[in-house]
């Protein structure tokens, strides 16, 4: 085994090792500190954890391709909120009310379409202007959030459809609907990144854009497809979550972009592009959710949770850099 392969193995398995460490830590410490009698590693608790991972998880999986591409999308939280509003509000439209339960797939369609359109706007701007995706999506993050507030002011938008709630709360083969969406998305994106032409191009564009252009890859349209994909996934995340909750606040989805990016980076994807994996991101999502849940389990408050996650993120990046150092001849800064 070459040192390169060894490094890759450490990097790819690192997040799963971390998850095991977390599980062990919270199980043991939980015995002494937990406020509840329930064991942390309880099966139902773990199922719930997967379900709770879904909203940010689905977004993070899409963010992985965007980041492999060498881009970033900060507008996913706002897209999430706007798609949620379209989902719930569309069901109150007069013509929809006459459709009975057929309104549900139609409402989903509207919401998902909203996500795709918002993503296409981002992608088109990045492609045609060449402005950095960070700046473009920073702008659209503010802009899309503005649209959310324009829709209903500070008021929440609510609509409960019990058929929808039943669907969202259903369990199939023991897993919740949201979990199935998370795992399904992960499977599809894993196939896309590892087995398809599009996935191959995503790595090539992120790793060496000039070489990709020279190889005849249409880089601009490629990038736009990916932004449409993440828009779709942000909306899908909203569909999954709000089918159950039935009420969206205009501030919902704030900071989701940062949680998603955190999960992606923890999963080993490089911010600079060209390297990363869907499986790693799935690990990153689960690790973060475990941490939040576990720290809650042993009685830590939200602020502490954020502090710990922040520290761990930095520690991971420092370790990653050490693994990537080519040796002593590397330039010092």
């Amino acid at each position, binding site marked *: 085994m*070459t040192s*390169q392969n060894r490094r890759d193995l450490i990097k790819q398995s690192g997040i799963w090792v971390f998850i095991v460490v977390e599980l062990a830590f919270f199980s043991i410490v939980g015995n002494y500190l937990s406020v509840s009698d329930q064991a942390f590693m309880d099966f139902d608790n773990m199922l719930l954890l997967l379900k709770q991972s879904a909203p940010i998880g689905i977004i993070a999986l899409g963010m992985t391709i965007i980041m492999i591409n060498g881009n970033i999308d900060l507008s996913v939280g706002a897209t999430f909120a706007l798609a949620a509003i379209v989902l719930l509000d569309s069901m109150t439209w007069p013509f929809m009310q006459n459709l009975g339960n057929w309104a549900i797939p139609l409402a989903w369609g509207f919401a998902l379409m909203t996500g795709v359109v918002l993503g296409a706007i981002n992608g088109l701007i990045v492609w045609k202007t060449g402005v950095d995706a960070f700046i473009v999506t920073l702008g659209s993050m503010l802009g899309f959030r503005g649209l959310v507030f324009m829709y209903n002011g500070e008021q929440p938008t609510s609509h409960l459809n019990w058929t929808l709630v039943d669907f969202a709360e259903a369990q199939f083969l023991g897993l919740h609907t949201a979990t199935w969406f998370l795992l399904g998305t992960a499977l599809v994106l894993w*196939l896309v990144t590892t*087995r*398809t*032409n599009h996935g*191959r*191009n995503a*790595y*090539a564009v992120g*790793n*060496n854009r*000039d*070489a*990709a*252009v*020279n*190889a*005849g*890859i*249409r880089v601009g349209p490629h990038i736009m497809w990916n932004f449409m994909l993440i828009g779709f996934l942000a909306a899908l995340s909203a569909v999954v979550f709000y089918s159950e909750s039935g009420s969206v606040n205009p501030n919902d989805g704030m900071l989701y972009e940062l949680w998603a990016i955190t999960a992606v980076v923890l999963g080993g994807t490089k911010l600079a592009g*060209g*390297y990363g994996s869907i499986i790693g991101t799935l690990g990153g999502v689960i690790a973060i959710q475990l941490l939040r849940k576990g720290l809650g389990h042993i009685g830590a408050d939200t602020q502490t949770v954020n502090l710990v996650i922040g520290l761990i993120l930095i520690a991971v990046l420092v370790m990653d850099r050490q693994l990537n150092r080519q040796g002593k001849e590397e330039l010092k800064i």
Partner: protein
Amino acid sequence: MTDPKPVLRLRDIVKTFPGVRALDGVSFDVRAGEVHALMGENGAGKSTLMKVLGGVLAPNEGQIFIGEDPVVMTSPKQAKAMGVMFIHQELSLADELSVAENIFLGELPLKSFGRVDWDKLYADTDRILETLNVGFDAKTRVGDLSIANQQMVEIGRALTVDPRAVIFDEPTASLTDAEKVVLFNVIADLQARGVGIIYISHRMEEIFKITDRISVLRDGQYSGTLNTAETNEDEVTQLMIGRSLDLSRNASHHQMGNVALEVRGLSCGRLFEDVSFDVRQGEVLGFYGLVGAGRTEIAETIFGLRTPSAGQILLNGQEVQITSPIDAIKLGISLVPEDRKDQGLVLGMNCKDNMSLPQVGRLTKGPFVSQGAEIAIFDKYRDKLDIRTPGWRQAVGNLSGGNQQKIVIGKWLSMQPEVLIVDEPTRGIDVGSKSEIHNLIRDLAAQGFAVIVISSEMPEVLHVSDRIVAMFAGRVMREFTSEEVTEDNLIQAISGIKEQGPAGHAAASHGIGQDKALT
């Protein structure tokens, strides 16, 4: 006017890199008040020698003397402290800062509490600018200056200390004729102050105009010093190339087919103008010229990476429109780019993925890429090109330069191109692999590919080409067949010297223009 005392001496400098003896016992000295030209082909060791002198590279053997004292250069900062200053070909200025801040970058005069002493800074800078006789002041933003004036700022940096020796590396590469005159005046001033000057350039006219002595490097070895007044261009050229080439001239004549690619009057802004040539099936057409002569830009234009401002491209006699690499690839044109790592390979990917990158969209089974088809392609070209790698899983970043280059070539051969353009086929490749790549190029031509080779290495161009196009400053100076080309007439053509022969009058007139402008 020459003070016989050398201000700077290099003695028996040896510098080896893995597999290469870049400098092999080079000795060289500069006297006070002299302009000493350092010449040699690309790769002869000039840059390495200057890096050793500047403390960037440590020599394996040899000694540097400043005046009479032996010194060990350990860092660029130390070189500067000893009064050895460099004016680099590439400017390294901070565009957003003022002229004064750039000149004193890293050593701004300070007052108490670390505050910058702006008055002293501007006064000092103005004093330096006065000696340079320039038309801008210390507070000007550097980004607002012309290239020539930015170069003056670079020179100004060299004058913050009392320099003993100043090294100019291709200083006129991006200057207009009027700007050159200003630069030469500055050099004359430095000379009058007793500074020793090393002047690196490929341009013969300048060398003969301003230098006192000429030293020549060849393949990392010192090949002689001439007094400028007592020599001529031919003699210098002889020193630069006068070796028995270990690479034999290309002699393998095989059957050539129809014209595969023809270019008529192609121009791209000021990068190159009115370029015409053709290349036949089974032929290797070499492009030779100095860095910046426009060769790479021509290749990029044919490959659709640049938009031509005029001219036509004909493929098999049909005019074609190429607006992107996608068009070029569809038409059967492939480009092996100049910089393998930046433009050719995706270093993070494995060998197989790199090789199949341009056609991976076609190698699908249903929605998925067929790994079997990819591996088949990889295996075929690994055997054909003798690529040495443990397997297709190997990341290309771990391969040697020669094998990396073969991956890029294999990538394009697998596309079955009609025209293959190879830009700097052996840059950064060790000697053994070089001749392998050369043989490969000859083989490809023998198989009927039309091949264009762009190179800055004369032996390479002479070895692989059936015909050679010599370029200078964006223009085709002359086209040589392999029978009529000599090292002499080739190096003169690419230096912009008008030629004596009857062929190519149009090209010669450009040369005359250059001559006049310089005198």
